């Protein structure tokens, strides 16, 4: 520590400098709060791509403000010489390395998130069995909102060693699957055609995206998977419900019995 001369670097700090730095930090914090509140509110009024782009700009703007604040605050506190910088950042590195290892891990992962973009605000992701829409990306963690309106905080540090599934990957195309199980011994081709028609008849279907009806036989009967894209990712619950209801209606009309899937214990 003596070599780094941290004491020397900090000796020039005066109370005025501290006050000035504190004001800068407060202004930056307020700016970040405004950006984090205002931009998602504006994005909420839009739909489609403009909404996704606006949401994705929030963490980038925040990073920009943080970098600008650091570059403005450091010269206020210490003389920006090479020795002083090495001393300050060396001490900071040691502190982060020992005392706040996990926190720093998530901070760095948060920066990687902005660069690699494994998820953006507006994406629908699944991490450790939790599925939801990314509401915000913070410095340390991301917040997702599940389909049942529960907020889950996911530290960015999980990125390093956890599998992450992203359903729409920055676009507004999100494939949904409605599953129905039918009693065997029926005309499979006919049911596939009827299910395909019913997907196209659903007003929530994005008809310019692929529509697929997959079928497989299992112990529990014939399993049909109705795959299609809703108009917007936000429509997924309504879309799957609508497809399931329409499929049930067809089964009733055709006299094909739907069966329940037995409960599976994991």
């Amino acid at each position, binding site marked *: 520590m003596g070599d780094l001369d941290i004491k020397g670097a900090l000796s020039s700090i005066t109370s005025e400098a501290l006050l000035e730095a504190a004001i800068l930090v407060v202004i930056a914090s307020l700016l970040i709060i405004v950006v984090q509140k205002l931009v998602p509110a*504006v994005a909420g*009024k*839009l*739909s*489609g791509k*403009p909404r996704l782009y606006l949401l994705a700009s929030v963490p980038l703007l925040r990073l920009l403000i943080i970098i600008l604040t650091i570059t403005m605050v450091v010269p206020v506190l210490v003389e920006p010489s090479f020795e002083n910088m090495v001393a300050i950042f060396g001490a900071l590195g040691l502190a982060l390395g020992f005392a706040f290892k996990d926190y720093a891990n998530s901070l760095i992962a948060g920066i990687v998130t902005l660069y690699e973009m494994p998820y953006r605000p507006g994406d629908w992701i699944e991490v450790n069995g939790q599925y939801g829409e990314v509401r915000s990306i913070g410095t340390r963690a991301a917040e997702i909102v599940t389909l049942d309106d529960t907020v889950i905080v996911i530290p960015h540090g999980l990125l390093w060693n956890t599998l992450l599934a992203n359903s729409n990957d920055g676009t*507004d195309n999100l494939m949904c699957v409605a599953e129905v199980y039918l009693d065997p011994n029926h005309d499979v081709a006919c049911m596939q055609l*009827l299910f395909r*028609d*019913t997907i*196209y*008849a659903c*007003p*929530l279907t*994005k*008809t*310019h995206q692929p529509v697929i009806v997959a079928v497989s036989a299992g112990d529990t009967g014939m399993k049909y998977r109705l795959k299609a894209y809703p*108009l*917007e990712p936000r*429509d997924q619950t*309504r879309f799957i419900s*609508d497809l399931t209801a*329409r499929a049930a209606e*067809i089964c009733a009309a055709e006299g094909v019995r739907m069966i329940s899937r037995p409960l599976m214990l994991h």
Partner: protein
Amino acid sequence: MTSETAQENPCLPGGLIALDQWKTPETSVQKTLRSGLRDILQQLRAGMTPEDQAFESLDDLPALSHAKLGRYAPQPEAGELAGAINECLASLRQGCTHNRQVSFVVAPPFSGIQGALRASGLRVISPPDNLLMAEKDIPGWWDEQLAGDDWVVPELADFWLRHRSGMGLLKEFFARVAMEGAGKGMVGCSSWCWQFWVQYLPELHVAPLTVAPLTDDRLTRWLAFLASGKAGGPLTARMTNDGLYVLPAPEEGCERKYSDFARDLATMARGNRGVAHAVWQRTLRARAEEDTENGDKEEKKDIPANGPSCWVAPLEQLSLPAVPQSNGRQPGHILHALLLHNGLTSEQLQLVTGLPGQEISLSLARFQRADLVTQGDTVGAFRVTPLGYPAVRKYLQSRGYPVDGF
């Protein structure tokens, strides 16, 4: 496909072209950006400002009287358009660029194709009363309709409902056309309906034709042609703000200075004849000292020696209808269904959208107040208005609905 010559039919400028050759009229990057920004601002403003979505003129110049409007910007004649379509088809057949037994003319709403095909003189096939016809009855129905002499289907969108039991008629029809088993005929089809069916039947290849988009020069020629029939001479139209000319159409060697109005109108209407015509009618103004709504009696004698003239309000001074803000999916479902089917009754809307009748009535009433939708007299079907169409299309596109390619 058709070269633009001086001999082309003036009521169908640009003629018929292959569907894949259609493209929107060109505009400047600046105007595209401005329009995109305006759309975003409109979305943001929605909900903050009181509902003032209906058509509104923001200038205080007197509008043209009904009689003058009927002379200066009359509705296009369906018979003339039918003749022009037949001429174009004959010329395409002669040039061997179109040799199908069944000719499809796909066009955006309000293009006038439906009326023209109805007036073409061929036997008209009308849709059955029951669009949810049982599968087993469909082949027999088509056998009956397609037998005999040449036929015409003025609007294919009238033959289906987006319902699991309402698609059978068109599935059978397309299968017959693909197998050349439908005889000889002509089919008009709304671009929205077409978009749905080419996605449903990706292997459908029937070489559809479409009307060429109205670019600024085509639009000017067309508007001048419309006025020439009844106005009593070539119409002169100038801008109210700077006096620049819109009509008559520019000629070689003429030294008049022309406004960008025609280009802006063509862009705003995306080359759509019906939309451009509806907006054009709303922009025409009389002189302040001239007759207005009450002065119709004087009109016969007031055609000046150098031809009739009127003024044109800039497009920025018109406030076109806007779609009312709503958080639900109902407005989008209803408007999309109306365009897919070229108009639907309230009962049909319930069937297609799956929405309850009360919700549909509430939304329709709101749309009618906003001049977005109008109800027809005969069967009571609701349709999108030409003035409301640009806003409806943008609204549907921004909310992820599949829109037509026009």
